[in-house]
């Protein structure tokens, strides 16, 4: 499977008044054609920064991509001229955000917002734009698309707005869709509708999807491969089936246990003690060590590197690498 997106040794830093934050630290991964890869992590793990970096949208200053390459179709996103990156954004890589109310312009009609993409990237005429917008709205399951196209975002419900955003993202049939918490702001039944929609469109259009989420349920149901991030670094990567059945990193194990609500009726959940460390005060050694049940003395001194404990199973944990858990 050839890779659509190839991220190599990506590091992103933010300069703040309190010091430099390493939001993403030497991250590498690839997404194959038609594949769905999920990045999972808690707030502050750097998962959304990865999404922004892939479109070169990191605000600079204060942010800076301090190293690495992001290859999309063989071109490095990070060194493309501005005109070339604009031709990629929204056309070949599209993104949908968590909150559709924030991402849509409240003073433009639906038709104008979706139409802008079509005019800019595909150079369609006004009449073609209108026809295509209606077609796109129909594709994402908006009822009465001709009427909806003339409405404003505030006329639409949350689920409808998210559909409009998906329609906008899909307008140019992108090769890669980046979805950052696409359903967090939605109700469960609407979430099921939207996830089902992304899935069926993915199959229809053959897109690859980079899914950023903290919801393990969504990961289990939609992703092929999972990358677990903690404090800016990848700590484990594997296929979705294996990561849920046989997680190796203690953090992944803790995350999965903490979400096993169905199975622990009445009893207490297994919890991960403590909280994510402050980015200004990272512990020496492994950043998960202070919360880890399997910590060794070595973990407090040295940060473990990613190492394949089996073919295609990189894990950054001394204990897992020694096969003790």
């Amino acid at each position, binding site marked *: 499977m050839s890779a659509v997106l190839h991220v190599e040794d990506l590091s992103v830093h933010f300069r703040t008044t309190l010091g430099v934050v390493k939001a993403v630290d030497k991250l590498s991964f690839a997404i194959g054609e038609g594949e769905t890869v999920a990045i999972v992590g808690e707030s502050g793990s750097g998962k959304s920064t990865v999404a922004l970096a892939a479109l070169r949208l990191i605000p600079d200053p204060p942010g800076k991509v301090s190293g690495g390459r992001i290859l999309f179709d063989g071109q490095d996103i990070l060194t493309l001229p501005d005109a070339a990156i604009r031709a990629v954004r929204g056309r070949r890589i599209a993104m949908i955000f968590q909150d559709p109310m924030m991402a849509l312009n409240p003073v433009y009609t639906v038709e104008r917002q979706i139409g802008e993409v079509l005019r800019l990237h595909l150079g369609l005429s006004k009449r073609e734009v209108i026809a295509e917008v209606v077609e796109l709205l129909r594709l994402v399951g908006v009822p009465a698309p001709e009427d909806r196209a003339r409405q404003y975002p505030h006329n639409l419900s949350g689920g409808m707005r998210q559909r409009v955003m998906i329609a906008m993202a899909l307008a140019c049939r992108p090769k890669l869709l980046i979805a950052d918490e696409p359903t967090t702001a939605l*109700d469960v*039944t609407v979430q099921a509708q939207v996830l*089902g929609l992304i899935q069926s469109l993915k199959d229809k259009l053959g897109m690859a999807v980079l899914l950023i989420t903290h919801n393990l*349920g969504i990961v*289990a*149901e939609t992703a092929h491969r999972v990358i677990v991030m903690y404090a800016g670094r990848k700590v484990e990567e594997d296929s979705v*089936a294996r990561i849920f059945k046989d997680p190796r990193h203690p953090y992944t194990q803790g995350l999965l246990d903490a979400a096993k609500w169905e199975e622990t*009726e009445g009893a207490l959940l297994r919890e991960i003690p403590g909280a994510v460390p402050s980015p200004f005060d990272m512990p020496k050694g492994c950043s998960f060590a202070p919360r880890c049940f399997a910590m060794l003395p070595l973990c407090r001194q040295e940060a473990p590197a990613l190492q394949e404990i089996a073919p295609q199973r990189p894990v950054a944990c001394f204990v897992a690498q020694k096969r003790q858990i």
Partner: protein
Amino acid sequence: MTGMPAETVLEAIDLVKHYPVKHGLFAPARHVHALDGISLDLKRGETLAVVGESGCGKSTLAKCLMRLEEPTRGRVVLMGRDITRADKRTLRVLRRQIQIVFQDPYASLNPRRSIGTIVGDPIRLHEPLERPARRRKVSELLETVGLGPEFMDRHPHELSGGQRQRVAIARALAVNPSIILCDEPVSALDVSIQAQVINLLKRLQRKLGIAYLFITHDLALVQHIADRIAVMYLGEIVELADARATRASVLHPYSQALFSAAPVADPEAAARNTRIILSGDVPSPVDPPCGCRFHTRCSYRKDVCVAEAPALGAVAGRLVRCHFAGKSGFPPAPTAAAAVEAGKEAP
């Protein structure tokens, strides 16, 4: 407490709340039907969860039970006393019994007060304690929720989300309430922190016998923590059942769709889970559908559903608002939790 039927601490009797909406000067007055005839009771030491999607009226229900909103009709009975029309002074005394923990701990704590003041304020209002005694009590409360005494002089901005929610819980506990209303208490927190806060709430309930009324849309959480679950749709309760019973199946077509839509953190169970995807949006509560309020989206709809509103009736040991629930040709749908269970039993 054991053996005896548990005492009812909070009861809603046929609660109705309509909000007027104006569309124009001469337009006829219309109403948002936020609550339409809600009756439920909360027993001492139990957890009752109210679930439903945005706009179903669950937050309005919470506000009416706290008497933060005046219900249009119906009654609220707290510890055997009707508080529907209680005046401000009486309410202040009664509010000792019922406290609330909000969803967003970033918004519910005053950023300019120290943690000691935030937790100490309810004590100051309700109990004549000298300052040193009050500080001692605050320190004990913080310890109960797993925070050291050093937190007393800190301010909310120095705390993480999980620690803030612990402070909010300590503040609720300060006046020894019988009931804590939890409005989405963990949905703003990270997964690993959610488990910590839920475990804390459970430990407190075991120790202090507090009743929780959980308002949430997180169905996996609900089946873990609740004793009973009330499912709401468009201002009405459509199903009220033991949480244990809902793990096997739910009967109302809306509950079935709701529970099957919850994503399962288990790829194999997810593959077994047959998802019912509802078409369309929730109808406007200004103009709820005639007959059964769910008929516009129900796949089992018959003529009678459009013509006649079903009552909340007893079916198979629970209450369901549906003409056909429990009848032949209407299968109870297994929930996502059942899909997980099935995986454990399979060889």
